């Protein structure tokens, strides 16, 4: 079934097509939600909320991107809303902490689940910014707009996320050696 058939089927409330959409994308989108949310329950809640929005707003899809990209964007927005509902997730960083060094480490060994686990070690704020910047490809300006923060805060959160990831990688390296 093509994207167009999926979209048209969902618009006319065809249950079979709606189910097909769920079957096709729920796994990938759950993985996306897992990167933003703090646990599986919250991620699944975000996933279902996102699908409700997707079904309700399918007639607004304009084919300016792929259906998956559009759905991912909705999932990101829903997940971000969940993060924003929490208080005090943004932690400022002094300028000196921006300058990070990194150890030589073979990332090739990392499996997808390892990457996901690594991301889940990050605090909420770092995780959101890191996900949006490194994986979804948002600019700092877009991140600032979406999250309602300054660009500077976005940069600092990203730097902090990188440092945190570096620490975890070093621990993993130490563990291996």
């Amino acid at each position, binding site marked *: 079934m093509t994207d167009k058939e999926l979209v048209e089927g969902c618009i*006319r409330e065809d249950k079979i097509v709606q189910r097909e959409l769920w079957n096709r994308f729920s796994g990938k989108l759950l993985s996306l939600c897992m990167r933003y949310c703090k646990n599986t329950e919250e991620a699944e809640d975000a996933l279902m909320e996102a699908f409700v929005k997707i079904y309700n707003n399918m007639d607004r899809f304009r084919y300016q991107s792929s259906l998956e990209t559009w759905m991912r964007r909705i999932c990101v927005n829903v997940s971000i809303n969940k993060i924003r509902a929490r208080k005090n997730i943004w932690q400022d960083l002094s300028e000196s902490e921006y300058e990070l060094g990194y150890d030589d480490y073979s990332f090739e060994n990392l499996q997808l689940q390892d990457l996901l686990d690594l991301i889940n070690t990050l605090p909420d704020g770092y995780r959101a910014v890191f996900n949006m910047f490194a994986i979804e490809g948002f600019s700092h300006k877009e991140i600032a707009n979406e999250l309602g923060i300054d660009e500077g805060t976005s940069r600092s959160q990203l730097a902090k996320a990188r440092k945190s990831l570096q620490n975890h990688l070093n621990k993993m390296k130490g563990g291996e050696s």
Partner: protein
Amino acid sequence: MNWKDFENKFQELNAHSLKPSANATFEEVMNRRKKKKRRVIIYWSFAGLLFVGGLGVALNSKTNSSKSNIDNKVSIEQTENTIIEKNIVDAPKEIDSDNLIVTNQQYSENTESQSTHITSKNPKITKTELSERSTRAAALNLESISSGQSNLHYSKQKPWIEVMSLEMSRKIKNAASYREYLNKNNNQTNSRNISNTNYYSSNLNFNFGGKSLKPISLNWNPQLGRIDWIDGPWDLDPRTPHIDKRPMYVEFSAITGSRSQVDFDLKQTTSILGTQYMAQYQVLLLRETWDEFLWGFGLQYTEWIGNGQWRNVENFDVKVIDTSYRIVKVPGLPNQKIQIIDTLVKQESNTTTGNIGYKMDNLALPISFRKVTSAFRTPLRFGAQLSPGFTTYTRGEYFSATEYQTIGKSRRPTFNAKLSAGPLVQVTGDFSLIIEPSVMYHSFLDMQNNFNGRWFTGLGVSMQWRIK
């Protein structure tokens, strides 16, 4: 490898997929959608109620504000001097009256402090001081013009104080003749004023020497319920005109309802699931007959929409023939080859599914009955309604749980009915809101001349204005 490479590594997560747990299912998503839709409907109903209620309160406060202005105006009038009429003031201060031809005599405001003395030859009318400081006081002064025969009339809407001829006053015996009199004299008082008129008859008899006085409006508009402004000791019995005072109302209402068939009927070859919605708008003219029982007619427009999915299961038998050969060796005889044919009948089925939907709009003429009562100190209104009508637009195929049929493009007769009960909220004296949980029946006559009907449960809001 640097950080850029490291971050690129995370791009691989875009292809990562996880299996949702049993808590996150397609059915759960659909349930959430349904709940969300319901919440939206409730939210908008509530918001609509608040808006209409707020509008009513705003209108009410505006009316109260007008009342205050009137009160202020009256109080201003009370600080000024009032005389009967300016030309009387300019005329000689004493007026002899032989023939009384004074109609619709009124008081006008005057910025100057003046007074007029009216003297009549009639021994009962000696001298009237009309330089009172309020219209009320002036009205009371008229009492001192004691009487031959005349009538005094006033209405709550537009007060007039009249002194009329003996001949005319004899003709006026009731409200109808008074209305005729007013029409004849081109009086501005309308029939509604008459219905609210407290009708007094007195026997004033005095003359102003053939001079007639032109009526002048008092610009005085006391509100209903404020009839204390003229309370002179007339010692007269009021005559209540026999005018039909049963109130009439205009009602606007909007209601939505739904009915869902959530599962296929597995026992049926053809079964259909889906949801049927209806939205109904109507305007009614209601009249109270007795003891808060209302009935009336109106116009009703209904949209009836159904969306669903059909499933057709075709069962059939499949005969499976299994053929095998056996060699039978009988000593002394050549080998016998035996063919064994094993026949097995299996039952299989083909399931076909598809989408189905329809829309049917109809226009109807409802006959409505309403009864207002109360329970637990809350006013409640019960309603019943029958609405014969006809379709104005049809599309698609109508369906029930087990069958569907084409509605047809031709105009079909319809019949709707509704039972409702809900709290009545009186926003202002004449405006009420009613929240109406309802049970509705909608049906139409199909092309085979069978009535196809559905029961719906719904929730609506009605706005009711008293117009008379």
